């Protein structure tokens, strides 16, 4: 089992550009979570899918951020018109519903 896979590991964008982050959950896991980690804010929940359906996006910034899960093998987090304050490590986790969560290595996004 390869664990949760996230690509790219590092991404550098210019201010105003779009960034798309990819996550492949552990096969068989029904739940997929996205979190963001910064030094100032620590680890913050962004959004959650169960069986590919969006269930809870209460942590997502209302503008510019969107997430999708078009099939059971991958989810994407898209940030439009990136701003320097979006710089963070974006983490994807998967689990069986209600169970222990396993995290991917993260994507470090740097917005210049």
């Amino acid at each position: 089992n390869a664990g949760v896979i996230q690509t790219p590991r590092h991404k550098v964008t210019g201010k105003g550009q779009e960034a798309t982050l990819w996550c492949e959950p552990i096969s068989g896991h029904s739940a997929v979570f996205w979190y963001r980690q910064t030094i100032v804010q620590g680890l913050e929940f962004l959004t959650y899918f169960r069986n590919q359906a969006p269930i809870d996006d209460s942590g997502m910034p209302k503008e510019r951020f969107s997430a999708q899960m078009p099939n059971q093998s991958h989810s994407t987090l898209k940030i439009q018109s990136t701003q320097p304050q979006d710089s963070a490590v974006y983490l994807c986790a998967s689990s069986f519903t209600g169970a222990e969560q396993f995290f991917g290595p993260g994507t470090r996004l740097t917005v210049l």
Partner: protein
Amino acid sequence: GQQVQQSPASLVLQEGENAELQCNFSSTATQLQWFYQSPGGSLVSLLSNPSGTKHTGRLTSTTVTKERRSSLHISSSQTTDSGTYLCAIPGGLSGKLTFGEGTQVTVIS
């Protein structure tokens, strides 16, 4: 919402020493996870322990649910144990994790 507090914020150990990390949470939890994160590294799940005592290797977690606290005991510390230890509690219908701020552990030889 759920609040999670960890203590101490940091500690320095001489190799071979033991350490105990604390996690307190504000609401009843049905699950609790301890994670390890190396500098610049990913989150590695160490233990999932909603109640009672669990062991893995040199790590022992004890959770007292009704007192809303958990501890992580590291025995015979090694330099490779250096990093940040995070406690997390799921909440809401989604089970989204709320994390403590972590305990930064430094083990020196």
